């Protein structure tokens, strides 16, 4: 890993520097790996996002201006620059899911998680948002839970899934 001499960023965010550095080492320090690196850095954050500090570190190690890193990070929907919940619940708003009444699923999820779509629970446990079609239309209505597809959603299934999430969190 290439480090600038006497880096202020490294001094300030030592731990982050290590983590991000190892991600960059894994992918290789080249511009075309920037998106993969940001996704990977995000997956290591407990709140599912890439912080400003992390972007600074990426910028310094990769030698890409901070503005450019920020531009890329904010352009792509799969990369978040604000903290998200421990569980990211993304309900599809695509056409297939719409005709199969994703709106009922939305109501059920709001009731179960206890927040309106588009927000995060105060305890940081869940973020619930709409997402465009992710190609699971054959099992619509569908959602992604931390990136994993869950399809053929029913009220019963939703209840079960949210209970399981809470159990997982409790055992952590």
């Amino acid at each position, binding site marked *: 890993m290439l480090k600038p001499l006497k880096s202020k960023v490294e001094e300030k965010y030592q731990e982050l520097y290590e983590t991000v550095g190892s991600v960059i080492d894994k992918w290789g320090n080249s511009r075309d790996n920037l998106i*993969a690196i940001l996704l990977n850095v995000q997956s290591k954050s407990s709140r599912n996002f890439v912080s400003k500090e992390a972007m600074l570190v990426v910028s310094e190690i990769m030698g890409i201006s901070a503005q450019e890193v920020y531009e890329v990070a904010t*352009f*792509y929907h799969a990369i978040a620059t604000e903290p998200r919940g421990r569980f990211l619940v993304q309900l599809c708003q695509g056409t297939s899911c719409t005709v*199969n009444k994703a709106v009922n699923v939305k109501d059920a999820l709001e009731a179960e998680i206890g927040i309106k779509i588009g927000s995060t629970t105060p305890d940081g446990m869940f973020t619930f948002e709409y997402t*465009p079609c992710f190609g699971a*239309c054959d099992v619509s209505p569908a959602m992604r839970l931390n990136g994993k597809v869950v399809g053929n959603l029913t009220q019963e299934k939703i209840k079960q899934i949210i209970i399981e999430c809470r159990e997982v969190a409790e055992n952590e």
Partner: protein
Amino acid sequence: MSKTVSVISKNFYSVNPDSIDEYIATGGFEGLKKAVSMKPEKIINILDRSDLQGRGGAAFSVAKKWTHALRVPAPVKGVMCNADEGEPGTFKDRALLEHNPFGVIEGMIIGAYVGGGSQMNRARIYIREEYSYLHDRMRNAIRQAEERGFLGKNILGSGLNMEMNVVSGAGAYVCGESSALLESTEGKAGRPRIKPPRLNNVGLYNLPTLLNNVESYSIVPILVRDDSEYRSYGTHRSIGTKMISVSGKVNKPGVYEIPFGITIKEVVYDIAGGLNSDRLLKFVQIGGASGAIVPASQIDTPISYEGLAEIGVAVGSGAIVVADESNSMLDYFESLAHFFAHESCGKCTPCREGNRQLVRIVELMKSGNATSADFKRLSGILKHMKGSSFCGLGKTEPAPFLSAIKHFEDEIKGYFK
């Protein structure tokens, strides 16, 4: 009798997609072996004979594209596979990557043989983030192909050199647009480039680049090996088969391979098992989010380039979303408007602002406060987007809205006071 066929999908569920040996045992890489013994022009002739058209949606002649690639002189070239399908309702490339990864790779290598340079050609498969569970499958397939000498230096003694990588998208529909796809592959924000220069001259890393869709590449090895079966299907103006994805209110949603020329009705009722409700079919949307809305009265139309063109519809990505009488046009508009507003890259005004206004008008319709002046605005915005957007996203987006207004005029006007 089953109305589906299996030429491109021949390996589905019968060949282990993680094993190159199984792929080879069923004739895999025979197409490539034959290809490297032929002159590139001969291969292009085969594609031309089947009139293969780009299967991502644009339907541009593959033979023409490859001829161009062959003619551009350069020692190193780019070879790209667009696996970023993001049209709502479309998931046929997912099935091809999942069940026939080696077929995609083989098609790309033949592409490089025909249109590549003499030195280390750079091949990239750009797969959307939403399919991240398939990235490793593709990487594994590439590794096995390298081990067998189908990738790397001097492939099968042909003098062709090629290295191949998987690149992940990060959730941006516009990256399916070819120049945006390249920007993204290079690690930048995926905004479409100004053209010219065209990508076949200045593409990936400024190299001349051959870019095709997953399905187009998958068909190539089959045609090169022996195109007789493929050519026995279809109509005389739409030769062969098409991978389609059917979803919505049907009993058996899924990915199917159909011969060109069967009707929408046959797909909905005979292949996808009919409607999953006791309501009547209301409309289908063909070709993805930017595809046209086809009312129930037109479902006897054959699915072929010429058949659909007669009712002003394009084959597009091959998606068919089915809606019944319980689905309102308003809900459908809402889904479309939000999708495009979310996905517009913001580079040009007609699309960026047009989408913002579309969402507002749909919201007014929902709240019952839309007026006839809003209807006029809606029509005006759609016209401008179609005529003056910078890239295909904004240009094609009006199609479903305009066709819906045409076929469901009363219902839609009913949402405006």
